[in-house]
């Protein structure tokens, strides 16, 4: 299992691995927002938590179609399915590798992009916390979507359509934590809901992903 994680991380950093793609997308989206809504700092600081959350979500989505498709194309998914590793742990490791190469950099970059959007000072802490708790769910749900669409030509588009509605609960509660944190309100309830969603997806979805992957490999 460690070997698979290390391989996926290594592949992400090698040529064409796509590391930094999501991060660059996140950066560009947040830089473009002040251009499109205008430079009023009060308006920007109101919408900053929501914009940052939406940007992180879309950046996360960007790299999902490569998650399993590359392994399917070169045949290594077939070989992994016949290896001693259970498919459940293969998809869990894949989701973890995706989070480490996409989700975690977004979490770390978010405070710096918050400055660009004039995010109120108390909001920084809660933005990082909410993204830290919410992004693992996005990787796990995304892996499920990737397993559903593996083997389809142009599956990436279908993948977005399937995955985005599933991201809604995470987005609602995650953005709510960041928004309440930024305005100095109490954040416990949405944060608990967000953590609950993440915990439930991590606990349940790998089984669903492995099941659809088995059917797709037939």
């Amino acid at each position, binding site marked *: 299992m460690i070997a698979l994680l290390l*391989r996926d991380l*290594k592949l992400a950093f090698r040529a064409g691995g796509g590391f930094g793609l999501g991060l660059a997308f996140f950066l560009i989206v947040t830089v473009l927002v002040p251009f499109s809504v205008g430079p009023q700092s009060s308006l920007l600081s109101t919408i900053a938590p929501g914009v940052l959350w939406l940007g992180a979500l879309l950046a996360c989505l960007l790299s999902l179609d490569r998650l399993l498709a590359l392994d399917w194309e*070169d*045949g*290594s998914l*077939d*070989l992994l399915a016949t290896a*001693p590793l259970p498919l459940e742990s293969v998809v869990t490791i894949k989701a973890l590798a995706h989070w480490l190469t996409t989700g975690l950099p977004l979490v770390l970059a978010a405070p710096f992009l918050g400055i660009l959007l004039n995010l109120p000072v108390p909001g920084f802490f809660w933005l990082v916390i909410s993204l830290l708790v919410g992004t693992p769910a996005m990787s796990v749900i995304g892996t499920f979507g990737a397993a559903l669409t593996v083997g389809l030509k142009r599956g990436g588009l279908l993948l977005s359509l399937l995955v985005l509605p599933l991201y809604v609960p995470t987005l609602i509660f995650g953005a709510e934590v960041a928004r309440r944190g930024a305005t100095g309100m109490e954040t416990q309830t949405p944060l608990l809901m967000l953590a609950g969603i993440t915990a439930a997806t991590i606990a349940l979805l790998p089984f669903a992903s492995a099941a659809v992957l088995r059917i797709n490999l037939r």
Partner: protein
Amino acid sequence: MTLTVTDLAIARGGVPVLEGLSFALHPGKALILRGPNGIGKTTLLRTLAGLQPPLAGQIDGAEDQIAYASHSDGLKPTLTVMENLTFWASVFGTKGIQHALDAFALNAFSDRYAGNLSAGQKRRLGLSRMLVTGRPIWVLDEPTVSLDRDAVQMFAEAVRNHLGQGGSALIATHIDLGLDGDVLDVTPNKAKPQPIDDLDGGFL
């Protein structure tokens, strides 16, 4: 470990391709699978490897015993030859890849990226993966595609060594490998077309 197949029926894309297939593969033996294109050789091998369920029949002794090599090699172009092999060795929980590099003469480019290898060299790397799996039953699908004459000999030698150590191999191939194995021709097992009794039966 003997692989026993009894009265197996398999389907590709929902259409039955082979039926009533029975054979046994004993340790130290090779079985050469033959049959025309489209008869279902790949489907049979995938079924044995556990990638798809059979329509009917029994497969005994396959669980966690089979190392499967498909048409594609499962190589990562941005990993080196060494990294590719080491990865598969650690997935299968075995140590040491040197014997695999030696068997397929891969030492000279063990530090080269797999993406820069020629088609035949990639195939050799794909086949050398079988040696690091440590599994007793090899199931190989057209292993000699894009191999030159010397590489075919390397491969035959590797299979002979494997059989000598008590392993077994099921190989779908159209060329003569010079192995003293039985030939399993699946042509007589071609599935008869199903009579269509009711028009919407297939949908329900």
